[in-house]
């Protein structure tokens, strides 16, 4: 690969804002949710007791829904491209999954060139979209129609909400580890969390297929 110099704009301003909003809401939701589901006193007390924690959980839930919804409405094109990327699974993605992107020491092998998101990130994207939808669908009956819905359905909502949340929390923990801690991949951290840019050489290496479609703008 030829040497490239410069930087790549990976995530726009609105995308980064949405990511931040969703992230903060998610952390609050996860904390309060764990707090009152398992009745952990000190977490509940952080939010002023179970009843208040639940109130915070519900309104954080509204932010969790409205944030991405607004983003999709305002940036449908961006969203459509994202969906296109994460739902396009090619041989290269299978190859990535087989070697786990080279992140696991004993899985040796050539990592195929990747899109804007590698196969792992694609999986995470799908998990988050489906998971959020399930959380929203089960969450609102538990809040708004708790008096009306039959107990069997309420219990179903609670268990779906619980297990989906558990999976999402684990997935997001993994995502955090790779994006912020792992030395090989934390180089991407700034592109989502700070200014949106990533070093061109790294991008050309990690997201070769995507990088090749970019246009160069001279400063």
């Amino acid at each position: 690969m030829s040497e490239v110099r410069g930087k790549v704009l990976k995530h726009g301003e609105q995308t980064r804002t949405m990511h931040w909003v969703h992230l903060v809401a998610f952390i609050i939701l996860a904390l309060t949710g764990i707090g009152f589901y398992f009745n952990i006193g000190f977490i509940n007390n952080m939010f002023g007791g179970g009843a208040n924690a639940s109130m915070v959980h519900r309104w954080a839930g509204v932010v969790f829904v409205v944030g991405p919804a607004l983003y999709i409405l305002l940036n449908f094109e961006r969203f459509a491209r994202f969906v296109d990327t994460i739902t396009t699974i090619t041989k290269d993605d299978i190859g990535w999954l087989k070697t786990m992107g080279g992140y696991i020491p004993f899985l040796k092998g050539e990592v195929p060139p990747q899109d804007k998101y590698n196969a792992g990130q694609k999986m995470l994207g799908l998990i988050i979209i489906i998971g959020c939808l399930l959380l929203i669908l089960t969450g609102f009956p538990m809040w708004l129609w708790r008096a009306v819905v039959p107990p069997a359905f309420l219990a179903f909502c609670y268990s779906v909400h619980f297990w989906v949340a558990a999976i999402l929390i684990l997935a997001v923990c993994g995502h955090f580890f790779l994006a912020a801690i792992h030395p090989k991949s934390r180089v991407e951290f700034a592109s989502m969390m700070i200014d949106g840019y990533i070093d061109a050489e790294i991008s050309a290496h990690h997201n070769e297929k995507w990088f090749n479609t970019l246009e160069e703008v001279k400063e």
Partner: protein
Amino acid sequence: MSIFREKGTFTRRQFFKGSGMLAATIVISGVFAKFGYDAWAASDAYIEKRISGLYTLDEKMAIRKSHQNPEILQIYKDFLSPGEVKPVSEKAHHLLHTKYGQDIPELIKELHAHQHDAA
């Protein structure tokens, strides 16, 4: 220093996939709502079934009126109002009737007194 950006192209394929995802969201919501509605509709169907179970049982009974129950007639004649069928007799009043609320302490006293008389 050069800066790289995505090209502004927006393909038909991307548009359909984005819309498709939104449509799928709506469909999943609909399925979930239908599931919830069915659960709601089914949740108390058992009440109606148990009710009709009792009404069917009533229809199958040989005797369907309380005052024709032979053992009822017997207990009045033998015990509650000896020799006749007379509800609210003195004994029936003592055994089968009660009082409520603030009259209860007085009733309990009466019952205890009655036991002393009997003893």
